[in-house]
């Protein structure tokens, strides 16, 4: 243990602890900006400076380990002056038009500046201007970038894609797309982790809310909205709702208040995905020589894009099933349009996703089942959904719970856990077991696949076969997995990959809480919803059964 003194208070911490954490342990929160624990501890912003007694030069609390006998001041006159100057310098190169910024109210820089009482900046404003394609689903505004490097680090260290890098040198150094490329020309999977780890509004998703309002105000259009599983575990966060308050029913009510004609659940097509993907797995297992192994899940567009860009020779390993979002779009514009007796062109299919990559997936040219435009017309992130509620001055607390519309509203517990890493695997195993054994397993029989570790290998006995499974979240982990598969170091039958750490609950379209990773607690909510559902097997979803009877005939039929 190391003993030191911070602001006159003695503190004892473990060796290797940073000054920042030592101070935190006694209730002193040292202001910081670029710091992101374990990911970005590079002291770039120089906001967390503190004075070490006896030394002229200030040290940075975020990455300086404690030493025995240190005497630290976090508010000495020198610290106060330097901290303020550095924030002012950052502000001089930051577009401070907070009123038009998506992160206003949830911006570290704004909060820091307000907390320090900065009311004027003595430095000349110098805003960089790097051109950007605003049609791309990911938007970078260089005039708001504070060069904290978090996006570079998240993409390098967690996602392993190296999309961002420091560009230019000297005073013109900035953060931009690596290797002088434009973003469209990179392997960016649109996982959106750079957005959720950006301390300011420099990174955001493309704003598709106006398109939704246009659809809502078009009298010719029937608006159909679907909501992904992980959205229900996070939408209330940014509205100040507790987990208990932010129920599915309240979310449905809020969507109906906005004015969507039909409010459906992506969980429905998650169950459908299991029928298709589970059947595909059994088909592949029955005819192993006909297929490429292992079989990969295909519901995460970030992962699918990753495979197509980095490991195209493994495209055949991906399940041929569309993602739940796209199945939903396809079913809406065919089966549901048919049921309503209207032309699919008159349906505007909107989805609310915890994901930025879904915006690209929906726009892929082949996602057009009815020949009447894209199956999914507009994709909003959870954050955009929340913004829309605010714009419509809807306070969910004042609403009464409502139920999903029918027929695409019913879902099982197996569908709801799609939103968390391991969920697709677990749901698929439940149904595959039932098909092979002719009876349902215990619903929790496959809960061993759960967990927040980036890669989990499990084996299950399925019929007369031992099924080797692997569940991965985070693309850095996925890359290692692919290397291991290519090098022959591992051998699996079925692999689930979600691009975002923790799965969709930790998705790049979810509400942002600086410095907090909420995937685990959101995942717990989904597991609770699973337990609370009366039906926990996808094959028992009655509306899905009906869809097969009336339209699809049998799994793998289309």
């Amino acid at each position, binding site marked *: 243990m190391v003993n030191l003194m911070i602001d006159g208070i003695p503190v004892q911490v473990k060796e290797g602890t940073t000054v920042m954490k030592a101070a935190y342990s006694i209730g002193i929160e040292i202001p910081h900006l670029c710091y992101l624990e374990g990911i970005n501890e*590079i002291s770039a912003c120089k906001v967390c400076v503190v004075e070490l007694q006896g030394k002229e030069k200030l040290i940075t609390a975020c990455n300086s380990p404690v030493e025995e006998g240190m005497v630290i001041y976090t508010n000495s006159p020198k610290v106060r002056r330097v901290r303020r100057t550095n924030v002012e310098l950052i502000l001089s190169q930051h577009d401070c038009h907070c009123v038009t910024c998506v992160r206003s109210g949830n911006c570290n820089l704004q909060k820091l500046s307000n907390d320090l009482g900065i009311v004027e900046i003595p430095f000349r404003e110098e805003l960089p201007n790097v051109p950007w394609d605003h049609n791309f689903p990911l938007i970078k505004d260089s005039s708001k970038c504070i060069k904290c490097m978090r996006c570079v*680090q998240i993409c390098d260290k967690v996602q392993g894609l190296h999309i961002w890098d*420091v*560009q*230019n*040198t000297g*005073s*013109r150094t900035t953060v*931009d797309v690596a290797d002088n490329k434009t973003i469209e020309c990179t392997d960016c999977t649109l996982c959106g982790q750079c957005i959720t780890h950006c301390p300011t509004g420099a990174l955001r998703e493309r704003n598709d809310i106006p398109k939704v309002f246009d659809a809502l105000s078009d009298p010719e259009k029937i608006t159909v909205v679907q909501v992904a599983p992980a959205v229900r575990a996070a939408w209330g966060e940014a509205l100040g709702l507790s987990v208990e308050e932010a129920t599915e029913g309240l979310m449905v009510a809020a969507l109906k208040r906005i004015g969507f004609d039909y409010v459906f659940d992506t969980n429905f097509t998650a169950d459908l995905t299991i029928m298709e993907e589970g059947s595909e797995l059994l088909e592949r297992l029955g005819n192993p020589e006909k297929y490429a192994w292992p079989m990969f899940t295909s519901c995460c567009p970030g992962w699918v894009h990753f495979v197509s860009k980095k490991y195209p020779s493994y495209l055949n390993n991906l399940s041929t099933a569309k993602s739940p979002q796209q199945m939903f779009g396809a079913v809406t514009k065919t089966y549901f349009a048919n049921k309503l007796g209207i032309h699919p062109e008159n349906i505007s299919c909107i989805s609310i996703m915890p994901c930025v990559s879904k915006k690209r997936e929906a726009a892929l040219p082949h996602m057009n089942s009815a020949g009447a435009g894209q199956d999914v017309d507009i994709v909003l992130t959870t954050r955009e959904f929340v913004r829309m509620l605010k714009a419509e001055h809807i306070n969910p607390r004042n609403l009464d719970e409502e139920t999903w519309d029918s027929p695409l509203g019913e879902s099982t517990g197996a569908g709801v856990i799609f939103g968390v890493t391991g969920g697709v695997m677990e749901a698929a195993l439940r149904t595959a077991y039932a098909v092979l054994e002719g009876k349902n397993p215990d619903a929790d029989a496959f809960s061993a696949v759960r967990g927040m570790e980036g890669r989990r290998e499990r084996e299950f006995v399925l019929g007369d076969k031992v099924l080797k499974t692997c569940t991965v979240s985070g693309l850095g982990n996925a890359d290692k997995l692919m290397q291991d598969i290519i090098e022959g170091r591992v051998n699996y039958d079925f692999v689930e990959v979600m691009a975002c750490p923790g799965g969709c609950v930790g998705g790049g379209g979810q509400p942002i809480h600086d410095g907090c990773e909420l995937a685990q607690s959101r995942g717990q909510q989904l597991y609770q919803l699973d337990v609370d559902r009366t039906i926990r097997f996808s094959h028992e979803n009655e509306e899905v059964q009906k869809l097969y009877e009336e339209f699809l005939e049998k799994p793998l039929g289309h």
Partner: protein
Amino acid sequence: MSRLKIATPNEAQLTVERLYKDLERRIIASPPGLCPVDLQLSFLRMCHAQTCGKCTPCRVGLGQLANFIEDVLEGRANMQTLKLIKDTAQDICDSADCALGYEAARMVLAGFEGFQEDYIHHIKTGKCSCHITQPVPCVALCPAGVDIPGYIALVGEKRYEDAVKLIRKDNPFPTACALICEHPCEARCRRNMIDSSVNIRGLKRMAVDHAKANTVPTPPKAESTGKKIAIIGGGPGGLSAAYYLELMGHHCVVFEEKSKLGGMLRYGIPNYRFPRERLDEDIETILSIGVEVKLNTRIGHADGEISFESLREEYDAVYIAIGAHTDKKIGIEGEESHGVMSAVEMLRNIGEENMPDFTGKNVVVVGGGNVAMDCTRSAIRLGANKVTIAYRRRQMDMTALPEEVEGAIAEGAELYSLKAPHKIEADEEGNVTAIWVEPQIISKIDAWGRARVVQAEVPLERIPCDVVVVAIGQGIETRHFEEAGLSVKRGTFSAMSDSEMKNAPGVFAGGDCVTGPATVIRAIAAGKVAAANIDEYLGYHHVIPCDVEIPAVRYEDKEPCGRIQLAEHEAGERKQNFDAFECGMTEQEACQEAHRCLRCDKYGYGSMKGGRAAIW
């Protein structure tokens, strides 16, 4: 009213003088990879501040040129701007009164030629094509990429054994480099910005003096792959490749034509600079992991030689690291006389402990490189009456390290500069009696900044002597390999940057035989590169790790502090023998010097990109 005054600089002038010095040191420490256009603009702005203001082109033109370049950097320029920059700079060059103006414009024109592509890249993409890749300047400049801040910190903590282990991750010759490396790492040391570079080689010497390489355990070897690799040449490059490949589990056999290993380290560098027993510490370590050696074995077609073709057949890969061991002739009359010898021959004899007897003789060494200095200082130690260095340019133009030249002069060598060899005079028995030289005058400077010489309009001079040592460079014996079909250009093997030979799968080459005579660290780096690529070629991806934990930074204010220089024995004493003349640091000195290191691995860009490659 006084008619004249004594000019004394005021405080402002004195401060500016100090700032000039600061700037000079700062330029020395400029990191690699900066945007050349941005630097050009900064240089130009300084030039503009120097204008006296009389003439239009300099007073106005330099500022307008700067505006154009700023437009390029700020994305406001088009291709027309480039033409304007060039034309304006040329006009300033052609019309400015004095060097303040025309030299400033010439710098812009030079940059325009040198990095026009970067200008265009800025205009077309709005971005710079340059990039800082290795954030730590000393590591960036070390050909082998040794973890310099890491081992300096370890020396500072007196963890000498760990320092040797860490160095060995990238360089299996820690002792050799501690004693004789040309230390390119020190050139851009960021410490220059405060005072002067850290004495990196001196600190490495501290490590190997206190933890002898052959007492520091080697890392465990990977499981045997069953592959066999032939290494031709037992010098630093060949042995480096052998060491890493053997660690990776491939069995290496080194073929060496001489009776001992070490190459130029033994047969080119005299004992007083690098004592043989110290060389053996490195070699012993390398051999200890199982590298097999065949001494006195030549590769060729003659009797008792092994042909290159048979090596290719018998081994899974071949690394050619034969160095540059043949001598070059001046090509003057009398060069065949008795008493004329090449530097290679002289130093090889010394390496084989077959000492030439120079007692009482007058020796002239022709050349100005490090090898010439080695010959000069060896000749003094061999009892010569007088040793003269005849060099065609000036002392400052010599390619030898300044300390080597100064050392030679301190030991009594005469430096006869601006003397080009003309002919060698011999008596009837063919023994050298003198060398005739042509006096030169220094002349115009060429495109690489090197001053040329032209013959002075004065008579030839005669330097009486008994021995002439020709130290004007070395060549490479490529004939046998050329006959075997390997590609050789301008006397060197044409290997690619990954050291593989074109059109000869499995054949790699590196070191002096590819680059021409260079430094030991470049040969070691080539061996390391070859080892990595031979491993890949054989279908493996072994990594060379090092588990030494690097000490954390100390919270210290970096106050200016002088650089510790290594002491040398007094010239009058050291020139009597071939014993090592350089002394290591004391612990007190090493601690102070180690803590001058600014730890660029932990501060600055290093903290973001990671200051080190923990494995390769």
